[in-house]
């Protein structure tokens, strides 16, 4: 394979080298968090974490563990940079994203360190493309201070049941209201749109409900425009965990299985909507 015939010397310059036989295992998961142009990449020996934020109210993270990669070499404890995510995705799909069986794009992602571009070697059918994407100083991601000890309510649902609800949500509603309670209605999604309101109720004993741990009744509203991008992650996932903490902050965690059956995670954090108008 052309990608592996690079000289040994070149390799030593890179602080991060990550290779994938199927670039789509990375591009598919990155698509689930592409709602803004820029993403913060943070690599550690555990793997790659990619963060995208919107106006300090919404944060999405994609985790790709090092064992997903065919090769993952990191020379420092932590390597961070910021790139234009749209450009990166365009490069990863440079061969057109064909789905012919047996044909896939191989990826070798290399980074020399601060000030250097992110270099992508992409190969398909013997053709190699080299892309160099400028990197920027990584911004510090917002710390939503969401910790498990503060979690008041948690449910884990099979994504299939939520996918339909999210695709039907009344988009004329400015907010999505989430009610979680140890008693009826247990788990409820509500919208308040131009034609009226709608409620989607999931009982705690539903066979779609894998885990139900609600300690107190909480109703929080979140801006629909902020949560809309999360439907991409929902579409890819097979399970989703919904947690709220005492402040009403929302954490959505999606379990995504890639084409090779490996597991990656995507999570979304969202602040509750401040201007809550009573119904």
């Amino acid at each position: 394979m052309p990608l592996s015939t690079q000289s040994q010397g070149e390799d030593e310059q890179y602080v991060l080298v990550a290779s994938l036989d199927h670039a789509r295992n990375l591009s598919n998961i990155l698509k689930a968090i592409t709602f803004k142009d820029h993403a913060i990449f943070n690599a550690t020996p555990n793997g790659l974490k990619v963060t995208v934020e919107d106006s300090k109210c919404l944060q999405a993270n994609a985790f790709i563990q090092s064992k997903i990669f065919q090769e993952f070499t990191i020379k420092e404890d932590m390597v961070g940079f910021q790139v234009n995510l749209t450009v990166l995705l365009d490069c990863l799909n440079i061969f057109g994203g064909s789905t012919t069986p047996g044909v896939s794009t191989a990826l070798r992602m290399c980074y020399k360190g601060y000030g250097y571009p992110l270099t992508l070697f992409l190969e398909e059918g013997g053709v190699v493309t080299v892309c160099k994407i400028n990197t920027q100083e990584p911004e510090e991601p917002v710390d939503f201070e969401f910790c498990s000890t503060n979690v008041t309510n948690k449910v884990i649902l099979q994504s299939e049941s939520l996918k339909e609800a999210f695709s039907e949500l009344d988009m004329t509603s400015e907010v999505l209201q989430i009610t979680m309670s140890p008693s009826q209605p247990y788990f409820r999604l509500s919208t308040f749109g131009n034609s009226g309101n709608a409620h989607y109720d999931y009982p705690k004993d539903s066979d779609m409900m894998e885990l139900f741990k609600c300690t107190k009744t909480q109703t929080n509203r979140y801006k629909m425009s902020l949560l809309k991008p999360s439907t991409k992650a929902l579409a890819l996932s097979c399970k989703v965990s919904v947690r709220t903490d005492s402040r009403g902050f929302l954490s959505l965690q999606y379990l995504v299985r890639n084409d090779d059956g490996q597991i990656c995670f995507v999570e979304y954090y969202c602040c509750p909507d401040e201007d809550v108008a009573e119904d």
Partner: protein
Amino acid sequence: MDCVLEGNAVKAFGKAIHSLSRIGDELCLDPMNKGLALRSVNSAHSAYACFLFSPMFFTKYCLGPDQGSEKVQCKLLMKSILPLFRCLASIGRNVEQCQIQVNTPNDRVKIQFFCRHGITKTHNLCYQDSEALQAVFASHLCPNVLKAPARLLGDMVMHFPVYQEEITLSITPLRVSLRNYFEGANDHMNIMYTEMSLHPDEFDYFLIGVESDITFCLKELRGLLSFAESHCLPVSIHFGAAGKPVCFSVDDMILEATVVLSTLVNSESRGPSQLAETAPRCADVVSESPGEADCRTAVPAAMEMIASSQGSPITHLPALLLLPTCTEPPHYQEEAHTTPASTLCSLLFRALSSETGEGLPVLVCCSEEEESEEEDVMRSPTL
């Protein structure tokens, strides 16, 4: 009103709403003793559809205590209710039961879907109170009647492109034909003309009283044809000469569906030049005019759709026969504010304000003499 639908009935109900959405932007829910009627009218009042579900269609059908004295008819925006039934396949898979309640304490129509896995979806939709707009069509007076399996009509109609607005149905003792219609036929070179004919034997029932060519809006009919095909129901067509409305209907034990469409007065566009230029297209939105507005709001208190037992249309028969004389331009010119399209509209529903009965004969008439308690309360207020 409180009713419950189960299983396939939910899908059929949704399909009816899809069909009605092809007609107008508003849906009228009319709970009656004999069933729940869903109606829609297009903005030009040249197309009307009604789906009547008998109480047997429902697992439970209860009218509230106030139904006897005061009619509750809800007008909903189609864009509020259609999304709830948008994906019929998913409804078929997931919805076990659907409950519709009207006159719940909060003045909303409450539609609840009880789905698999214990999931419940509740929609509270805002509605407007309204008088039901009902078209009355004396189908027993139609000289021509055809009945065919939905499949046959679907197969005929399939030959016309989706964008085809109007088609002409011609009937002679020897054949029934359908061809596409283009007004103003100026652009002969760019139009593909399609015509197909069927022998009378192809129809389950064939009755010809008068040879005619009627031109009507195909788009508005497609919804009913699709519904009929999905339920394998034959479609009946009642019509007369050009200019009189055509009625397409299907019925089985538990539901009836009807679409009444106005037809062009001069379907061949060879009439007075005025008419040819501004030949009303059934789907056109008509400009507002005083006459037009009246036509819309002054809804006639209605007779039932199949009026044969009511009898009153007979009193207006002379008006129907007068129609040909009214196609002359001078009559339209007198109506300074109405376009031919609005005239067509007025022909379909008699505006109560034009009590004088001048000029415009009524093809689809209301019965002011009806005594039955149901119709009494459906009378519109006098203007």
